[in-house]
């Protein structure tokens, strides 16, 4: 693909801290290479702001290779921008052309309060995982490999669910700011394996409880989450989560 440079107008959400009301600032960036990633373009903008003696834009990022889930940016109305199954760090500037205007906002959800600028507090996800995303294991010597026979299909499904990187795009995309896709991935990858069996029923009930306490919405099955998930987590997991939840409350073994 041919390499080109572009000038862009960026409208970026600036907010000093959680209490600040915040608002959009407009910036111009010049000579952005089509081969840069979206975050590299932000690095250029931040250099520019620092040189001008202004406060650089705060945004989350870590791996910059699409595996950590830190780079939360809502770009022109979509989490992580327009590319399917892509995080912001993997979105590249060849998507844009000279003269484009790009609006960048933080994730918007009651459960993800803005810390500063584009950085939000996603520890709600950590607390959901703490409430049930673990298994009991025997101590002592390690078991022989293959001691626990696991159906290949189940192992694959579990693995696909475990691919969730906790980025929060599902919440950001959902009109209800629901965390059901995230939670369904966390519940599924353990519920599908024999190792997850011991806490299977308490897990799903406790994790749903925690999700509700954190202030996420109810799922209305719009499937926006699946469409925006960088890891392609399927809403079939939400189906499983619902079934697991119903099973747990019907059985009465959920305590």
């Amino acid at each position, binding site marked *: 693909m041919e390499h080109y440079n572009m000038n862009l107008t960026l*409208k970026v959400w600036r907010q000093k801290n959680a209490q600040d009301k915040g608002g*959009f600032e407009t910036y111009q960036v010049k000579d952005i290479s089509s081969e840069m990633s979206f975050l590299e373009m932000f690095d250029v903008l931040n250099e520019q702001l620092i040189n001008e003696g202004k406060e650089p834009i705060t945004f989350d990022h870590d791996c910059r290779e699409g595996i950590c889930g830190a780079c939360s940016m*809502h770009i*022109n*109305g*979509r989490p992580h921008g*327009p590319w399917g199954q892509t995080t912001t760090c993997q979105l590249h500037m060849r998507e844009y052309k000279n003269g484009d205007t790009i*609006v960048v*906002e933080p994730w*918007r*959800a*009651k*459960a993800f309060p803005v810390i500063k600028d584009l950085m939000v507090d996603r520890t709600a996800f950590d607390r959901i995982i703490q409430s049930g995303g673990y298994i009991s294991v025997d101590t002592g010597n390690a078991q022989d490999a293959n001691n626990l026979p696991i159906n290949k299909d189940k192992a694959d499904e579990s693995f696909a669910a475990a691919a969730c990187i906790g980025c929060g795009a599902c919440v950001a*995309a959902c*009109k*209800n*700011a*629901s965390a*059901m896709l995230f939670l369904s991935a966390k519940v599924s990858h353990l519920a599908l394996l024999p190792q997850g069996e011991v806490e299977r029923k308490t897990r799903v*009930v406790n994790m*749903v*409880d925690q*999700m*509700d306490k954190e*202030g*996420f*919405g*109810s*799922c*209305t*099955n*719009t*499937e*926006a989450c699946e*469409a*925006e998930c960088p890891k392609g987590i399927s*809403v*079939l997991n*939400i*189906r*499983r*989560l*619902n*079934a*697991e*939840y*119903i099973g*747990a*409350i019907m059985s009465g073994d*959920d*305590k």
Partner: protein
Amino acid sequence: MNWKHAFTSSIGKKLVMGITGISLIAFLCVHVYVNALIFVPDGYHKYEVAAHFLGSNPLTRIAEIGLLLGIILHIVQGLMLWSQNRSKRPVKYAVYDGKANSTWYSRSMGLLGTLILIFLVLHLAHFWAPNRWQQLTTGHERNLYAEMEAIFQNGIVVIVYILGCISLAWHLMHGFWSAFQTLGLSTAKYRPIINGIGIAFSILVPLLFIAMPVAFYFGWLPPAASFTEVAH
């Protein structure tokens, strides 16, 4: 966990929507079947018999109470969910490209439901309420065929009914599958079947309902006066 908690959690509220939703779908099957009997050219006999059976049978009258409760639960829980879910995003996005990741009707269930509710109030006031009232006071049901014929002479009423049925169609287009998903039944194996039946149902049933006022309006059905009274 107690039952109350189970049905008031975020998933529990959706279970209420799903269970009442599927019950309402079941009711629609009965409703559309009985009413479509007006199209059977048998001097409105089959329709009369079926409508009278439903209207006078104690079991269906008990089921009717269940149905009313189901409708109320579906409406109240639906509106509460809508407002609670809205509160989960106190600061809105400046740009929100919903069409990029979901269908408009899946995001508009509250609006579509409200339109159906408005239609429903009118619809019950047209047929159900006066009929039950007369039944209560005189012991006789009204001639609903003649009622339909009279009410559907008004073009505005016909248009409102058509719009109500179109809202119903879009509401079902999402709600049918969504209910099965919430109840945990839409597995990879069944989803295509549920989707297929859902889409067919969402188109066919409202279309049949629309055909009724339209047929009366344009005089495609024989006038009620041409039938001899069926003895009850």
